[in-house]
């Protein structure tokens, strides 16, 4: 895999660097990296931008292939990338541009109590959450959903769980898509994917997935924070996970299907993992229906985790402590959206792989209650540092199809991270910062050490200064439960 050199990139405005379309013959649009010069130096060390150039060669791609400041090398598409294709003009859909963990995302819940009030209950809360929310590779949940019941969840997502008595209507109101995509087609999700998912609703999984108890440490925009119901010193709970084995299997099934059909559309791709199909072809529609159903499964998963958290909080803190869902966003997804490209209204399939929707104030997709200030954007950081809530902007609509970053972004491989720190030293360092850590996997914990990631503060600063989301609050971890 090749790397891009610095001289190829042209600075077109502060924090925006462009690889021109002329760089490689097969590019259909330029590739743009949104980051500081220092970050760029780091990013050029791996193949992230070469992967972005590959994305810029996809059939039907419009405007630019975008890299967010948290970009890192992935498989096929880079992680932290946005690519939109014109579906009314043979634009493609690519499962690799969405990822195997379909609708991996973040849910934030707020508690009406301060960290000080939580104080003595913290250890109990941490242990109770750790036992109530299964985490780790291969860990299943308490509930089994199969057959027609699972199909209804694939069709109606978190909304179906509410009708079954889990969670509240309010949780749905403050969830991207209201908790389910109407484009879902459960018949396009294979039986084996369904079998893998039947005991996985309400489970975190492993890797970089986590559940954190956090405190709102700093407010940057008082008005928006108030609208989101976030007060300095109060406690929040953040959940990061996705569609588990069901989503992984769905992606594998459909990538395989597209790989075997590439000749049919005479598609020549720079990497087989970019396998795609015209959005309006049978294969494209089958995948979109299956992806939407898997996304609904992920929303149901995070919704169920929210339900378990609510029960734990009731039992540890008392029944009058009411948890509110602040928002739930996806950062691995493909959406049909209307955007303006070169002054013309277009219907696009926006691939966000490691990128978050950041819709502007006034848009109907933003919950009524938040519409005056923009969509909440949830940016998880690393376990030793902090996370952010931002708000979507008009600039994001104009520049990046209403998209922004999704996290800190990895900079060190897992092997290097493990070599650089012993897990017990890491635990002590985190405890020294007042952070309780729960997790069965020492290996996993060391791999997720804060220094293995970019500094989330730098990432968010670039986002804020570029204007593709606005800083609202910073949250610091009190408890980290690692998957």
């Amino acid at each position, binding site marked *: 895999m090749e790397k891009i050199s610095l001289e190829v990139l042209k600075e077109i405005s502060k924090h925006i660097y462009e690889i021109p379309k002329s760089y490689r013959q097969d590019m259909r649009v330029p590739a743009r990296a949104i980051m500081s010069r220092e970050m760029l130096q780091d990013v050029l060390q791996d193949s*992230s931008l070469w992967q972005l150039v590959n994305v810029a060669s996809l059939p039907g791609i419009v405007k630019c292939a975008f890299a967010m400041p948290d970009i890192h*090398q992935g*498989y096929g598409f880079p992680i932290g990338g946005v690519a939109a294709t014109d579906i009314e003009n043979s634009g493609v859909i690519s499962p690799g541009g969405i990822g195997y963990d379909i609708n991996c995302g973040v849910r934030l819940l707020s508690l009406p109590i301060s960290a000080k009030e939580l104080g003595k209950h913290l250890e109990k809360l941490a242990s109770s959450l750790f036992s109530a929310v299964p985490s780790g590779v291969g860990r299943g949940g308490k509930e089994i959903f199969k057959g027609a019941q699972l199909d209804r969840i694939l069709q109606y997502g978190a909304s179906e769980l509410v009708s079954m008595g889990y969670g509240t209507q309010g949780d749905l109101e403050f969830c991207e898509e209201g908790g389910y995509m109407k484009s879902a087609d459960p018949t396009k999700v294979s039986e084996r994917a369904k079998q*893998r998912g039947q005991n996985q609703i309400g489970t975190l999984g492993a890797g970089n997935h986590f559940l954190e108890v956090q405190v709102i440490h700093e407010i940057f925009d008082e008005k928006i924070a108030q609208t989101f119901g976030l007060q300095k010193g109060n406690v929040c709970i953040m959940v990061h996970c996705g569609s588990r084995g069901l989503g992984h299997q769905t992606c594998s099934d459909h990538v395989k299907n597209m790989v075997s059909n590439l000749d049919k559309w005479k598609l020549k791709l720079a990497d087989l993992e970019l*396998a795609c199909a015209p959005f309006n072809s049978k294969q494209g529609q089958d995948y979109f229906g299956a992806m939407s159903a898997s996304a609904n499964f992920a929303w149901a998963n995070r919704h169920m985790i929210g339900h378990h958290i609510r029960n734990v909080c009731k039992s540890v803190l008392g029944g009058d402590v009411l948890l509110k869902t602040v928002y739930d966003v996806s950062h691995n997804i493909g959406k049909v959206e209307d955007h303006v490209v070169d002054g013309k209204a277009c219907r696009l399939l926006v691939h966000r792989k490691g990128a978050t929707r950041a819709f502007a104030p006034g848009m109907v997709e933003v919950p009524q209650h938040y519409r005056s200030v923009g969509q909440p954007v949830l940016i998880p950081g690393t376990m030793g540092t902090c996370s952010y809530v931002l708000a979507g902007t008009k600039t994001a609509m104009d520049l990046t199809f209403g998209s922004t970053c999704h996290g800190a972004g990895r900079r060190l491989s897992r092997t*290097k991270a493990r070599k650089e720190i012993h897990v017990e030293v890491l635990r002590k360092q985190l405890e020294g910062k007042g952070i309780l850590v729960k997790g069965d996997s020492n290996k996993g914990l060391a791999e997720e050490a804060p220094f293995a990631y970019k500094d989330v503060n730098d990432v968010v600063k670039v986002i804020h200064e570029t204007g593709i989301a606005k800083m609202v609050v910073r949250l610091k971890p009190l408890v980290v439960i690692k998957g």
Partner: protein
Amino acid sequence: MEDKKDFEFIEHTADIKVKIYGDTLKQLFQNGLVALFQTVLPKAKGCFIREGREFCSSFPIARKISVTSGTKETLLIDFLSEVLCLMDTYDEAYGEINIQILSDTELVGTLHGIPVASYRGEDVKAATYHELSIDKVGDTWEAIVTFDV
């Protein structure tokens, strides 16, 4: 004499990249399974870790596997994807395979594995087609595979 390498990990920022070796194509596929097993590191009775590698006294479970694909390269990925699916479905991990049929487009065999409660290694979401290759270098077959974790 030093044992011949079956696979090795290659540096990758976020995922797990492996280089797999085999004297024959069949052994290459067998070692692909070993690479996956040594990436997930199952926690199971009768298994232990020594120098980062998992060893099991036996593999009591037998499960049939049958995969078809377009080329030998995609067959390797589709085979590993099928193994991942079986692992997740049955809570089992497979350390060995007896391959009965292997061509460029078909694999039929019997996986041998253990029941697994959890894993101490990586959460492998998928075997990807990213930068996939199978080459014969001298007398040795070599493959590059990237696992999404």
